[in-house]
């Protein structure tokens, strides 16, 4: 008999703990080098730091974030998409505060992945004066069935 996993926890609206993140020149250089780009010479950071800074600056590891969804990181979560908005460019050496909110966690079924949960959370970056710099709304797929 196939066991259906328990429904996902009701965590929509849960605020996420905040923290801080500083974009280092070393990290920016690594990101550029390993993605087919090169650092800009105007002090701006690679825009992908909107995702990196929010994820790391949250001060909640990915495993801990997924534990809120009753999901084990060893079960292979996957990023499905993101929507990012910038008020201005990110800068190397600048420190940002990070805040976040869980928007929803929904059970879905997919032909390719079987039973899964869609985990949607929004993360914001602000400068140390409190001005908004960037936001991202991330959607992750959390598979709830082992694939053959």
């Amino acid at each position, binding site marked *: 008999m196939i066991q259906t996993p328990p429904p996902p926890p009701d965590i929509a609206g849960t605020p996420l703990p905040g923290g801080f993140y500083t974009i280092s020149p070393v990290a920016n250089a690594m990101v550029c080098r390993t993605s087919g780009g090169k650092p800009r010479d105007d002090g701006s950071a690679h825009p992908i730091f909107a*995702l990196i800074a929010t994820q790391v600056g949250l001060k909640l590891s990915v495993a801990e974030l997924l534990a809120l969804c009753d999901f084990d990181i060893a079960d*292979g979560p996957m990023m499905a998409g*993101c929507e*990012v908005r910038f008020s201005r460019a990110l800068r190397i050496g600048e420190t940002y505060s990070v805040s976040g909110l869980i928007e929803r966690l929904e059970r879905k079924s997919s032909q390719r992945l079987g039973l899964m949960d869609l985990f949607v959370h929004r993360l914001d970056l602000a400068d140390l004066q409190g001005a908004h710099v960037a936001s991202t709304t991330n959607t992750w797929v959390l598979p709830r069935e082992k694939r053959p």
Partner: protein
Amino acid sequence: MTDTPLPPLRIEHVDAEAMHDWADLLEDANPIHLDPAAVRALGLGDAVINQGPRNIAVVLNAISQALPTAELTGFSARLLGNVHAGDALLVEGLHRTDGATITCSARLQADGRGTVMTLEAHLRAEPGQGKEMP
């Protein structure tokens, strides 16, 4: 308004070693990026899977190289498939200018698996426009 092709950006070989660097940077120990056995156990293939943000960074680089003076104001990405270690990647797309706004639609293709990501980016043609004056 006319669509202008993005110059294609090619990555000949996705490097597994760099996935460890990205895992450290992202503080993400998800084993699908680090351990081929974990990928096999989950039925996702035989080679480690690249981090989604690294795939997005590749596409953003193609856009930045095509439009070096424009300012990125936002983007949305849909990850449709996985990129594995050893894959060859190609970014292609189009951009269109409407006044001070540029919209760019790009796709990331992995050899043998077609389009694995689509991304739409919005850019400001003249950086600094629209900002409040002090």
